[in-house]
């Protein structure tokens, strides 16, 4: 009974500290509020079930983002190994579309560029052009300030690869924005 109470307290603490960050990243990943909420809920549900397996609470943030990433890939019907494949930006739209052409909230997975840029802000549009394997490290560092070590834990990547993905990802994000919008 005491264990369960402590577990609940730990979970509540985990929600208080990290739910906003998880939601922000989830929204940037999915681009849809309802889908992002579902993704965060699923992440916390998995976290609650696996809370006992978390020995080092210092790693909680990285652990939660690792779950979020797994759930996101699961919603796309992809395995983590899929991220290792080379995805070029011009094929990204097809590759990130979930199977069946719809997101879990039932909305259409693809929209034309006009509708997308009308409905969402520029940075969201640019994130969606980014290769998926670069999205995670870039979002985790720029949005939530995770260290290279934490990103490595969350993505199960060695620090060298994380650094490389961060460099290329940010480069790609800037290039996408600057290519689309001429400086004036």
């Amino acid at each position, binding site marked *: 009974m005491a264990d369960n109470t402590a577990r609940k307290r730990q979970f509540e603490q985990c*929600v208080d500290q990290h739910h*906003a960050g998880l939601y922000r990243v989830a929204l940037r990943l999915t681009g849809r509020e309802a889908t992002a909420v579902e993704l965060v809920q699923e992440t*916390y549900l998995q976290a*609650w079930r696996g809370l006992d397996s978390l020995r080092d609470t210092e790693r909680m943030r990285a652990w939660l983002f690792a779950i979020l990433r797994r759930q996101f890939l699961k919603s796309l019907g992809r395995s983590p190994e899929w991220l290792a494949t080379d995805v070029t930006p011009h094929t990204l739209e097809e590759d990130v579309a979930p199977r069946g052409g719809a997101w879990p909230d039932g909305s259409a997975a693809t929209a034309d560029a*006009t509708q997308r840029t009308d409905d969402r802000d*520029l940075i969201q549009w640019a994130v969606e*052009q980014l290769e998926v394997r670069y999205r995670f490290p870039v979002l985790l560092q*720029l949005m939530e300030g995770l260290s290279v070590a934490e990103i490595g834990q969350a993505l199960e990547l060695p620090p060298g690869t994380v650094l490389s993905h961060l460099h290329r990802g940010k480069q790609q*994000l800037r290039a996408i924005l*600057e290519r689309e919008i001429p400086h004036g």
Partner: protein
Amino acid sequence: MDKERPNKSPGHLSDDDLARQLRDIRVPDTLRAELLNLLDRAEGSRALTTRAHQAHWQRPMLWSVAVSAAILAAVTLWQFFPTTPPAPDIAQHPRGESSASSVPSVGKSETIAEMQPASDDYTERTDALRAQIVELELAQLLRTQRELRRESLPELSPRERVALAYAMSGEMLHRRVGPTPVVQEQLQQVVREFPETQGSELALRVLSK
């Protein structure tokens, strides 16, 4: 990348600029409460699963106990209240034999001495029938208990099987209703009547608890 260009200019983007734009998201006020409610849902689902699991094994257990009790009651009644001699037509067909070859007909003119062999024959056949019925019931009990325990029993002799069935029945009753006089008597009877069998060993173990 032939897509309509967004009507905004990024200018020169530093990491801080990118971060600021990326973080420009309003987190729903209700999200925290929704996440904390997940616990209730998760626990509710676990409770349902537990209840379903309990019902899953309790039902066959109750059935088994009911069947065992019924068989025990039938056997006890059979032993303590011997039945009247069965009707001739039932006794004459214990194994599908023809009536003419198995039992002589009984006529009014025959004397008591002449009827005695026929009466003895009826008694023997009745006993054989009783033994067969008990055997069938015990076999059914063994099958039920074997399925319940999910384990296969070794091949046993009829005597071993009868002893083991009685002992297992007694053990189950002992576990369910405790060491009542009736249960203890059943177990002691197994020890007395079937010494040096697995049944008697089981009965002794249960009695010693």
